[in-house]
């Protein structure tokens, strides 16, 4: 599916079988640069698996994953590590290191990768925490945070290295609707500030439409539709229509 925009990530016929079960059956997808692209689809269809292919956590059985002109499937560990410097990922569970407090979690990639002076870190990290709404939470440990706060901290950690591409694996799963809305707003605001390419996997329909530039749907291991967000909501494709209208709550029985 061509978007007519500069492409930063290309998936070509990606196939993956996990535990004897074919999950991806030839995913072909172009991700436009500098936009937020959201991938929707039924649970257990391999959306997260697809996301992990993009950052090389999982290698495909067949097909190619091309990031900025580099084929991820043909490079060694060192080259993959270099390529990953473009990326950040916000995990479903936020994946904060629970042996460290929030401040150290956010500072972690800076300390590991950049040899930044500690004074700089002490300036940057609180600023980043302020931006995501965790101004006074730096000293708390992940176990003391609510689900929403964990996601915020995870987002701060993802943003702190100034990545070109951020992957969001169901950023609002397990949050109440208000908190989910707040996280979506935050992602949008951060996108406006930092201009990264965002790739999001989500169930939150219709919440994701206003924050996404492009929407794609993964079903039966393939991308069956992709279009700009406004067009996607008006689609004539019956399968897509059914999925988004059920999730809109239109099919709920009247009370």
């Amino acid at each position, binding site marked *: 599916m061509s978007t007519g925009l500069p492409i930063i990530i290309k998936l070509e016929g990606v196939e993956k079988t996990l535990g004897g079960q074919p999950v991806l059956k030839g995913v072909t997808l172009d991700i436009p640069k500098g936009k937020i692209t959201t991938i929707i689809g039924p649970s257990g269809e391999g959306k997260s698996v697809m996301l992990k292919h993009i950052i090389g*956590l999982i290698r495909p059985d067949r097909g190619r994953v091309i990031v900025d002109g580099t084929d991820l499937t043909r490079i060694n560990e060192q080259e993959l590590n270099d390529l*990953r410097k473009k990326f950040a990922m916000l*995990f479903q569970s936020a994946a904060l290191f629970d042996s460290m407090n929030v401040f150290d979690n956010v500072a972690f990639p800076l300390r590991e*990768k950049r040899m930044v002076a500690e004074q700089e870190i002490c300036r940057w990290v609180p600023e980043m925490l302020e931006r995501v709404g965790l101004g006074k939470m730096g000293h708390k440990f992940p176990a003391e945070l609510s689900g929403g706060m964990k996601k915020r901290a995870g987002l701060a950690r993802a943003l702190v290295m100034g990545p070109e591409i951020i992957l969001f694996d169901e950023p609002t799963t397990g949050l109440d609707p208000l908190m989910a809305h707040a996280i979506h707003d935050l992602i949008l605001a951060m996108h406006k500030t930092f201009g990264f390419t965002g790739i999001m996997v989500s169930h939150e329909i219709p919440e994701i439409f206003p924050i996404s530039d492009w929407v794609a749907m993964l079903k039966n291991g393939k991308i069956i539709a992709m279009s700009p967000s406004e067009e996607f909501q008006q689609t004539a494709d019956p399968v897509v229509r059914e999925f988004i209208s059920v999730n809109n709550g239109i099919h709920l029985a009247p009370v």
Partner: protein
Amino acid sequence: MMILLQGIGKRALFLMEEMGAMFVFLIRTFGWLFRPPVRIVQIIKQLYVVGFKSSFVVILTALFTGMVLALQGYYSLRKFGSEGLLGSAVAISMIRELGPVLASLMVTARAGSAMTAEIGIMRITEQIDALETMAINSLQYLITPKVVASLISVPLLVAMFDVVGIWGGYLVGVKLLGVSGGSYWSSIESAVEWKDVYGGILKSISFGLIISWVCCYKGYYTRMSAEGLGRATTESVVLAAVLILVWDYFLTSVLM
């Protein structure tokens, strides 16, 4: 009959695969051990967790092992009228065999299971994936400090075990059962050779490797569930303990 054969075959294949995966894991870990950056802070932290925090339980078990050895030894030796050799009997069995094996088993139970659980939880909650996405090799960051710390601290704990155990033997043999203190120590001095000590050190280093290797492997490849984590922890302790005993037999027969 076919089903039985199939079952055996499947199990054998699975075992082969697992053994292969374990060796690959070990080799990759060693590959990362010698690449910069050296994780000094992590290593010190692990030395504290594996070494220092295991020392109390090691001292406790060593004391009672030494005491019971003296008790048993005394009753056997008395039959031949050679209670004077009690010191050497306690010291040699401590240094050659019981020190390395029992101390390592205690470290397995105390620190090895914790290693598996910690790494396993990090796997389940995607913290290991998070490390990888930050372009940090998880083997180097998580596993190599634990291996280095075990290689250093297990021999030290074993040395401690030996000393406390011999002293526990002294307590029971000399203070309680009335063996002469002079003959207790002099029999140790005349019977224990450098070869015994050297063998014990060699054993303890290899046990340190077995503990960290098995326990880290089981944690690193935990199945993605709470049940998987429980199973991984159990399996790591059992496998490490069995491997320690089997390897101990081989080393003893070679070092004789």
